[in-house]
């Protein structure tokens, strides 16, 4: 499964033209924001054990950083791509 994902990663990217490299990097950047899901899992795991405030703080920080990655990543990509839409030939 891991190898399949790696292969698909190579395959999908190797076809993208230079024009779209910046938005593409930005989009893959947003996709690794899936780490937010990991942060949510770890928060849930933390809820099941006794722990101090430091761990809670770290877990909230993990969710925050993950959310910045997801929301910021997609928003920046969207902004970049909006500029492509306004081009003259109507596509």
């Amino acid at each position, binding site marked *: 499964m891991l190898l399949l994902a790696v292969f698909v990663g190579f395959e999908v990217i190797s076809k993208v033209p230079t024009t*779209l490299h910046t938005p593409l990097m930005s989009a893959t*950047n947003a996709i690794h924001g899936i780490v937010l899901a990991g942060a949510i899992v770890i*928060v849930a795991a933390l809820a099941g054990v006794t722990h101090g405030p430091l761990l809670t703080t770290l877990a909230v*920080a993990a969710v925050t950083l993950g959310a910045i990655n997801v929301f910021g990543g997609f928003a920046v990509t969207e902004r970049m791509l909006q500029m492509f839409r*306004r*081009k003259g030939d109507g596509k």
Partner: protein
Amino acid sequence: MSVAVDFADLIAIALFIYGLHELNSPATARRGNRLAMGGMAIALVGIIVQTGGAGWPSVVIGIAIGGVVGIYAALKVKMTAMPQMVALYNGAGGGAAALISTVRYFTAAPAANIDAIVAVSLVLSAIIGAISFSGSIIAFLKLQEVMTGRPVTYPGQQIVNGIVLIAILGLGIWFVATLGVLPNWAFPILLLAALLLGVFFTLPIGGADMPVVISLLNSFTGVAVAITGFEINSTLLIICGALVGASGTILTVAMSRAMNRPLTNVLFGAFGSAGGSEPAAGSGGPQQIRATSADDVAVMLAYASKVIFVPGYGMAVAQAQHSVKALADQLEKRGVKVLYAIHPVAGRMPGHMNVLLAEANVPYNQLLDMEDVNTEFPTADVALVIGANDVTNPAARTVTSSPIYGMPILDVDKANNVVVLKRSMRSGFAGIENPLYELPNTSMLFGDAKASVDALTAAVKAL
């Protein structure tokens, strides 16, 4: 319920892959991004269902803060600052991976129930995530020009890096060997060492190499996320992380190839240790250059039959893309053929110039890649270099001692006339002299790129 969640993950992954596929073409790229967003939403709902909302206050607080900060910054940032924003968001992802490992470890440590797979993945995702976090922040500070963009080197740098690396390896091996049964200080020290390595790794890299570094750090974060997936037993994270790790690697390699330099060379030194800026082209003294005026250049442009614009970072900084388009419109009205030469690493990111020119509604068929445009220069009357430097430096072809020797460049010097718009005679971001400026067919028009282009447009209009 778990079947439904697995199914949601599957759909999310399919949407990510299809979305990236749609980013192949400008016509479908926006839809691609929307699809990926949809995939992310499905995956996140799936994970919240799976955890049953346990610990929800932390999740709500984190998403609220992160969402507002992330979106606000993304909407407010200037187009020229996009590259460093990508670096920052990437760093956030790496930081999240490192923090997940930290929390995961200190949750499990008291019971000492960490198996070998979890131990290895904990250590790796913490190390790689932390390197990506601090490295991205340094990349941000360099591009934002908070700190110098030049390579930062000092005596004994390699030794210091070696010591930090050995500390990381030692602590990491100790951690895995004892399955995490260590004194409490060990893991924070490991994190700290990895953060330091990220800083030390990015500091000596400067100038033209920054796009490669951001791409590499992006793929680092992907790998860290995939490993985090092993640590918390999440197929979703493993697959998505591997997808980004692989695609980021491809992009990084493509970029290094565009510069004709092996990746190791980019990372470990050429710019850092090649002795800085040796004057090229055998001129010992100050460069012999010819300054010109906007009116002279306007005449040259207006009566040309083919003009090639060569945009670079200077155009991005001055936000001159709309002015450039206005000048092109004026020239085309007079029957001049206008082309744009896009070097793969012009600006601070691959595709940086394309994005800016697309914003100004420059038609795609006028943007030519390096291979295509280099055959056009010998028949061009004027090559107008707008704030590009290193990517036009002929020293890359001939001067073997030059740090950029071997990098494919735009052959602007083959054009009948070269006009360089530049703020001053300062060397480029990479800190290398450009012998192009001394050529007999080159003249310089000093000033802010936008102001110069606007002056040219006005002068052409007045002719």
